């Protein structure tokens, strides 16, 4: 047993740090620390920096640009990125549809889509959820019917992150209604510029509109845009959803949250002393830091034991705990800020805003972040769904 990183791993960490110091746009890090929102351009600049270093698609096969990192390396990379305030990479191209195409796509698809993901020509979004198909994804109703050489798609997707910026969407569509729910689904790539595709942003309780409804009305999609085999889309979707090994727990993000929380708690004062010295607050902070450490170590255990035992249920545990911690961090940050978390200030969150915010600098992002984080236990398989997975796959109940 040795919970320390190996010399090679430490060297890799150093390499990442150097890269970040030299190539990560500092102004983006400033935005992160100030709780401001990124522009889509920010994400593009960051991805370009990664691309230039060959680190934009680490999980892909080496021949397509992957890095062959170990899970521990991938985790170190994640952690260091969060430490400097790098935005979480938009995952839809690089982490989600990319691996599906490398694994199940045709040569033509690989040639067309993979480079475009990397050079930023294609910006993807994910069309899975529907108004009636959330936790019960397999009940989705969007239909694709073959008409000559084209699929004609009709239906509605929802909770589609980044659809307002994306020019491509990968969709689960029903291609067969005669079979059981899971068996009649296909995986289809759709150009967002196709007539019949409409995007409507959904404003959330955080004040942001990071997700959208995507309406598909007689959208004609070339036959060759279907990935793999017809009616086999559920398999690819499961591969995609289970493909994530790193980042589930959000340890890197949690550490950045902790830094911000402690900063706030040293600035805010209570009874004439820094908030961080208040017994009740400090106890909650300590618990949170301890829980984060438990999560970090458990994540490391999973990484160092990948392929061993039941990673599915392990991933569910990390998702459950990681999402709860994200919520608790935002909650405690808001609590530390006191009454100044109550004014609803969207302006100061915008990058180009240059007015004066009410209250201390850290106040404006607190409530929006708190409300935004409520989604973490809902999306990507809700806490309840994850516990059902643990129940079945690990406990055998």
């Amino acid at each position, binding site marked *: 047993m040795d919970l320390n990183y190996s010399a090679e791993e430490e060297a890799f960490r150093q390499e990442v740090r150097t890269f970040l110091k030299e190539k990560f746009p500092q102004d983006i890090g400033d935005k992160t620390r100030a709780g401001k929102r990124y522009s889509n351009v920010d994400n593009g600049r960051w991805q370009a920096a990664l691309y230039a270093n060959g680190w934009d698609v680490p999980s892909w096969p080496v021949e397509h640009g992957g890095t062959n990192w170990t899970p521990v390396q991938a985790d170190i990379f994640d952690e260091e990125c969060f430490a400097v305030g790098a935005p979480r990479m938009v995952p839809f191209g690089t982490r989600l549809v990319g691996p599906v195409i490398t694994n199940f796509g045709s040569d033509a698809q690989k040639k067309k889509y993979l480079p475009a993901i990397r050079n930023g020509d294609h910006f993807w979004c994910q069309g899975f*959820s529907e108004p*009636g198909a*959330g*936790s*019960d994804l397999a*009940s989705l109703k969007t239909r694709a019917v073959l008409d000559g050489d084209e699929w004609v798609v009709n239906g509605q997707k*929802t*909770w589609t992150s980044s659809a307002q910026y994306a020019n491509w969407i990968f969709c689960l569509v029903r291609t067969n209604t005669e079979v059981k729910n899971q068996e009649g689904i296909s995986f289809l790539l759709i150009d967002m510029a196709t007539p019949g595709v409409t995007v409507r942003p*959904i*404003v*959330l*309780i955080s*004040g942001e509109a990071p997700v959208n409804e995507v309406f598909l009305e007689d959208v004609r999609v070339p036959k060759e845009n279907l990935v793999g085999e017809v009616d086999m889309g559920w398999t690819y979707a499961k591969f995609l959803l289970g493909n994530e090994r790193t980042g589930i727990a959000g340890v890197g993000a949690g550490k950045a949250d902790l830094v911000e929380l402690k900063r706030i708690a040293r600035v*805010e*004062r*209570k*009874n*004439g002393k820094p908030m961080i010295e*208040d017994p*009740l*607050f400090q106890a909650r902070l300590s618990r949170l830091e301890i829980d984060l450490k438990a999560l970090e170590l458990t994540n490391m255990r999973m990484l160092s034991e990948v392929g061993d035992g039941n990673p599915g249920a392990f991933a569910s545990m990390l998702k459950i705990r990681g999402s709860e911690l994200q*919520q608790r961090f935002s909650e405690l940050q808001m*609590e530390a800020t*006191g*009454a*100044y*978390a*109550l*004014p*609803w*200030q969207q302006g100061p969150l915008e990058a180009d805003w240059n007015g004066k915010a*009410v*209250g201390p600098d850290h106040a404006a992002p607190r*409530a929006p972040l708190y*409300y935004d984080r*409520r*989604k973490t*236990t*809902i*999306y990507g398989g*809700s*806490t*309840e769904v994850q*516990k059902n997975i643990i129940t079945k796959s690990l406990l055998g109940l």
Partner: protein
Amino acid sequence: MDFGYSEEQVLFSNSLQKLLSDSYNVDVRRALVEDGPGYSEDVWKAFAEMGLLALPFPEDMGGFDGTSVDTMVVAIELGRHLALEPYVPTVVMAGSALKLAGSDAQKTDLIAKIISGDLKMAVALTEPGSRFDMADVTTRAVANGDDYIISGSKSVVLGGDLADKIIVSVRTSGDTRSEDGLTLFIVDANADGVSRETYSLLDGRGGADIHLENVRVPASAVLGTLDQAWSVMEHVADQASAALCAESLGAFEKVNELTLEYLKVREQFGRPIGKFQVLQHHMADMVIEYEHARSLVCQSSMKADSEDAAERGKAVSSTKVYLGEGGHKSCQSAIQLHGGIGMTAEYELGDFVKRMAISEVLFGDVDHHLVRFGKLSYLD
């Protein structure tokens, strides 16, 4: 022992409910917040006509001699309907400050205007660095002839955006954080040297930070006894807390209604999600929290008029703690039980959740009132 409303209370509760149902819907409310003045002058006038603005005032001044239980009945409906009007700052807070400490002249002058709906007020008790410690006052007044010159800043003043007059706590002697040496002044919101940063709070109601720079007020602007405002401030804050908790209870009721309804209509895996036992039990927990919160809200409103500061403080702090924790947790459950739809701004759930957040934090969060309850209960 009786937990029910009196006949009169049933009557004005019903009238208010009807008024608010007729006046407000989600679109009207949001338009008032986003494009309008942040409240409805028509509704405020209707409050005046219904006598709601006169509720807690003495009969000889045109009031109804009502109690905090009466204002609780009003506040519950305000919360249920997410009403924006500055009832708590004007009627409950400024109202009780005037009743507790006002001179005859002040009462005569101001109460009539409040009752007629012509005067909105706010009470400013906290400062940018004071957190929830109302004794931590750095705003200062210096005597100058027969006048006082006031300078300082007050933070997150509920209704401070709309107020015509603001009652401000000011240090006139003693050290920072001492309960002695505090004085309340009635300051005209448009007086020279007064500036306001106004904003909407999470729930759409208005608030403001108030900056006073060499504001000159006459001696007659002192409310109550010089240097001895602490007990009045505590009483006003307790009454405000009791009323905000009642608002929160009204919102809580709606949160539970919306969630229960959603559990019945939303289907996943071929059946209403309310058929899943885990979700059922979460919903049951929310109902249990609500019922116990309701009991405490009744109690704190009963005690809010008490002169016994310890008894009153314990009751109010209990409710702040209980509703602060149980309501907070229930709001989180409500969003979780809704799933994605609960995250959308279009759906009304989030508005109720945010209303409850205001009541949770203003005049002291859970930790603040937990410590206060402990001090009042266990230190001899």
